[in-house]
């Protein structure tokens, strides 16, 4: 029983089992991800020794290991992320100061560190995330 660095993939159109894609930079549990359709980001998580502030990325069309994208504003695990195809936002989750209402964001196309987006209506961990059209 251990935290893993597994990245695997499926073809959504085709029923079948998942296949190995590559590896994360860290073993992580309670993790979160988002994409712009081309680049996938892996944000935070509970690492082997502590919660993580790392953001890893992959080019989803190309199998291989993750690379460093930048850092969150704080260590976060059990938060959840979403995207509108341009910005990736990570909200909630325990950090060093306890469970937070913080939302971080990055521009998915540009490597770099996360910035403050705003706040959830309450401190929250283990939510579910999703995004869709406003109208």
């Amino acid at each position, binding site marked *: 029983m251990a935290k893993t660095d597994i990245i695997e993939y499926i073809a*959504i*159109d085709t029923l079948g089992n998942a296949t190995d894609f590559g590896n994360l930079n860290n073993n992580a549990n309670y993790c979160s991800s988002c994409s712009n359709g081309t680049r996938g980001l892996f944000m935070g998580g509970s690492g082997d020794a502590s919660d993580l502030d790392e953001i890893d990325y992959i080019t989803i069309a190309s199998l291989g290991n993750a690379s460093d994208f930048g850092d969150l504003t704080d260590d976060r695990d059990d938060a959840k992320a979403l995207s509108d195809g341009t910005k990736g936002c990570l909200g909630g989750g325990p950090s060093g100061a306890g469970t937070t209402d913080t*939302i971080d964001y990055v521009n998915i196309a540009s490597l770099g560190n996360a910035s403050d987006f705003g706040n959830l209506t309450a401190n929250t961990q283990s939510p579910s995330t999703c*995004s869709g059209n*406003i109208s």
Partner: protein
Amino acid sequence: MSGKVSDNLGRSSGLTKAASTGDPTATAGNPAVDRDESVGTRYINTTSGELFICTDATAGENVWTGQLGSTVQPPKYFGGRGIWSGGYNGSQTDKMDYITVASLGNCSDFGNLTRTKELGSEGPSSGVRGTAPGGTTNSTDIDYWTFASLGNAADFGDLTVGVQYGPAGMSNGTRGVMGGGARSGGYSDTINYITIAATGNATDFGNMTSGRSGVTGCSSDPGRGIIWGGYE
């Protein structure tokens, strides 16, 4: 035009729509969704030979329809409204918060899930309809809502395996796929799928490389789903 074939020697002499004047752009690969042209503009993929016509000209989010059946269009599995639903902080909650992702700022109230639950999942989206799978104590719940209308979630159907801290959610805009999560007595390697537009129970898709909880998922064009990390 003169009306006489012999008089129409220019390339555009027989064309009546401004957007289609001249030869189509000829380039290897399909047109990109951010190729901003007028409706009716033609484009040839020199690798496949497929002719595309711009059928929706929205800056950065154009739709190109190919005569061999291909369609290039913006992804449908995400959009400008983001929702965090459920969770835990001393007690479980049924609240649903939303943001407009393009505009920095705080969340506002969207509505409520069908019950309080601690999920740790991503919900597959069709762009129109969003979902929240799993929940407390190995729940088989799938809740859903319509993004454009603030309000409460409703019951979509059930997962084939009840999970929490997952599943990892993925979507191609039509099919929603969900894999992994903590289940009673262990960790699930089950991958389920739903057709997001049609409520109903999930069906078996396949299996992950190992059973894991605390996983996460995201999606890409053209239809690849990624499952990351977790505890096995």
